[in-house]
C-alpha cells in the first residue's frame, strides 16, 4: 500500500479510500474468481526421467507482461472508445491498455522489486 502511495504521487494520482467490508462477515460470497489450474495427474511409477518446467515468478511476470494495474484497466463500457491496437483483453474479458500507451503502477513496482532482487543476488 505504501508503495502504491509513493508511486502514485509521482504520477499525481490519489488513492480512493475504500470502506472495509469487514466486521464478522468473513470472505464475501458470490464474487469469487477461479484460481490456478492443476492439471490432472496421470498416476504411476515412472522409471524414465521426468523433467519439470517452471514459470519463474509466474504471477508478477504476468502482471508485468500484460500491464495489469488499477491505472490501466479499461471499464467494459468504454472499451469501444479505444484503438484495438492499444489494448489487450485477458481471458476473463477484462481489458487493459498496453505498456507502450501507459505503463501501470503495479507493473512498475514489480519491475523495481525484481530488478533490485536480481542485482542483489
Amino acid at each position, binding site marked *: 500500500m505504501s508503495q502504491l502511495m509513493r508511486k502514485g504521487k509521482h504520477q499525481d494520482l490519489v488513492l480512493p479510500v475504500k470502506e472495509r467490508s469487514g466486521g464478522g462477515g468473513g470472505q464475501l460470497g458470490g464474487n469469487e474468481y477461479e484460481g490456478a489450474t492443476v492439471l490432472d495427474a496421470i498416476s504411476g511409477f*515412472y522409471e524414465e526421467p521426468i523433467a519439470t*518446467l517452471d*514459470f519463474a515468478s509466474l504471477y508478477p511476470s504476468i502482471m508485468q507482461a500484460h500491464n495489469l494495474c488499477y491505472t490501466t484497466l479499461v471499464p467494459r463500457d468504454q472499451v469501444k472508445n479505444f484503438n484495438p491496437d492499444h489494448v489487450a483483453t485477458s481471458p476473463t474479458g477484462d481489458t487493459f491498455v498496453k505498456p507502450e500507451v501507459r505503463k501501470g503502477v503495479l507493473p512498475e513496482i514489480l519491475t523495481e522489486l525484481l530488478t*533490485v532482487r536480481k542485482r542483489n543476488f
Partner: protein
Amino acid sequence: MLLGLQARKRAKADLKKATDPMQRAVLDGRQLALKISANSVYGFTGATVGQLPCLEISASVTSYGRQMIDHTKSMVERHYSKANGFSHDAQVVYGDTDSVFVKFGPKDVKESMKIGEEASAMVTKTFLSPIKLEFEKVYCPLLLITKKRYAGLKYLDPNVPPKMDATGVETGPRLASAVRVFVLRCLIRLCWSQ
C-alpha cells in the same frame, strides 16, 4: 524498503563485498523479502477485505496463468512427437499452477535435461517478456500418486547423485495416521531399491 536509485546502488555495492557468511545471510534475506513482496502484489489485488481490491486484475492474472499452463502442455506435446521426427511422443503427466512435469521419453537423465532446456526456451519465446519458463530438475524415478502428492529422486545436475524429494507424501495432511505414513515411507524406499 526504499527502492530509489540510491538503494539500488547500495545493494550492488553490498554484494561485491559480501564475503562473510553473516553478510551473505542478510543479503539472502533481503532478496527473499523482495521476492515475497513481489508475489504479494497479486494477493493484494485479490483481497476482497483488503484496502484496494480489484478482482479484474487478480482474476485476469490467474486466467492468463491457466491459459499459459494449457498452452505449454499442448505446445510441448505437439512439438516433441513422433510425427515431428522425435523418438518418442512427449507426455505431460502433471502440472500445478506454475509448473509442468514432462516425460520426454529418452531414458538418459542428461538427455532429458538437454531437451528440458530446449523446450523451456522454445515455449518462453511464445510469451511476452518478462514471462519465462525455466527447466528446473529431473525426477528419475518418479512416483506420482495424485495431485500434489509425489516422490522421486531429484537430479539438478546429471553428474551429482540425486536426492530423495517427496511432496505431500510423508508430510501429507497432518491427520494422516502414523501407520499410513510408515507404510508409505517403506513403499517409497522399496521402489527405489528395485
